[in-house]
């Protein structure tokens, strides 16, 4: 106990940062890699402020390619962060995405995580 206490006293910031940033020895409190990736972070952020967004709008918004967007959207969908609805508008296929409650919770957790990093580096 005394040793752990001393370690904490010696380098509280390093310990805190390691935990926050998810280095190998940081344990379960790692960064959510599902959201951390830029395109996926963009998808989740865009959906957080809209009921639903079409594939075409997301592609324009995030300035990415069809293949890249659909690969990342599929990953988020498989993880249960977003829901996908496919329909037809006339003869044109239409894909719409919406954030699931899980996705919203995870984005909130990610935001908290980023704020914690900033707080830790400021203190």
């Amino acid at each position, binding site marked *: 106990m005394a040793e752990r206490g001393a370690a904490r006293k010696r380098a509280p*910031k*390093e310990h805190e*940062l390691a935990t*926050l*940033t998810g280095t190998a020895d940081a344990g379960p409190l790692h960064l959510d890699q599902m959201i*951390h990736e*830029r395109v996926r*972070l*963009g998808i989740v*952020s*865009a959906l*957080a*402020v*809209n*009921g*639903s*967004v*079409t594939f075409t*709008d997301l592609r*324009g*918004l*995030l300035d990415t390619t069809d293949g890249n967007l659909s690969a990342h959207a599929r990953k988020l969908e498989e993880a249960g962060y977003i829901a996908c609805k496919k329909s037809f508008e006339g003869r044109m296929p239409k894909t719409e995405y919406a954030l699931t409650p899980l996705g919203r919770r995870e984005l909130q957790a990610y*935001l908290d995580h*980023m*704020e914690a*990093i*900033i707080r*830790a*580096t*400021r203190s």
Partner: protein
Amino acid sequence: MIPARRARSTPEPVALHDRAMDNLRFIRETMERSASFTAVSGWAGVAMGAVAVGAAWIARGQTAPMAWVVTWIVAAGLSFLVAVAGMALKARAAGMPLVSGPGRKFASSFAPPILVGGVLTVVLFLHGEAALLPGVWLMLYGTAVVTGGAHSVRIIPLTGIGFILLGVAALLAPPAWGDAFMAAGFGGLHLVFGFLIARRHGG
């Protein structure tokens, strides 16, 4: 030893801090950009179209230039109120503040061409060139929609381009067609694009 340790450990927290800040900035900007297109209310566009069709019907019965201009200015004022109410309702439904980043950005890009239009309206009217007003109004409103919706979904700037083209046509056409162009632009384009925006972009 101590300075060496400091030198080694300092860059990491700074980089982490910067990365975290960068991530937060990215999230905020993505939210703002994606929210800007939803702030434009399609149903308000449809209502504005209906106002314009009514105004065109009233305006074509006016023989005095002053009465004609006042008819359209009243219609513009009404449409402005409808647009703001539509955006406020849509923002509230999405749980977003109207006067936040995207709303302010849209207004600051939309306003300059409209203000120029106001000045030109007075100048052209005083010089007895009221016949040019439909073309000037359509073009400047179109410019405002293009600039206001520059970072929005493609349908918004496309709507603006439609107005600009119609404005050019109005300036080249006989003056007697002015109200028809106003009805086609502020009425027709608002009705069609308003309906499409409402259907595709959440109201």
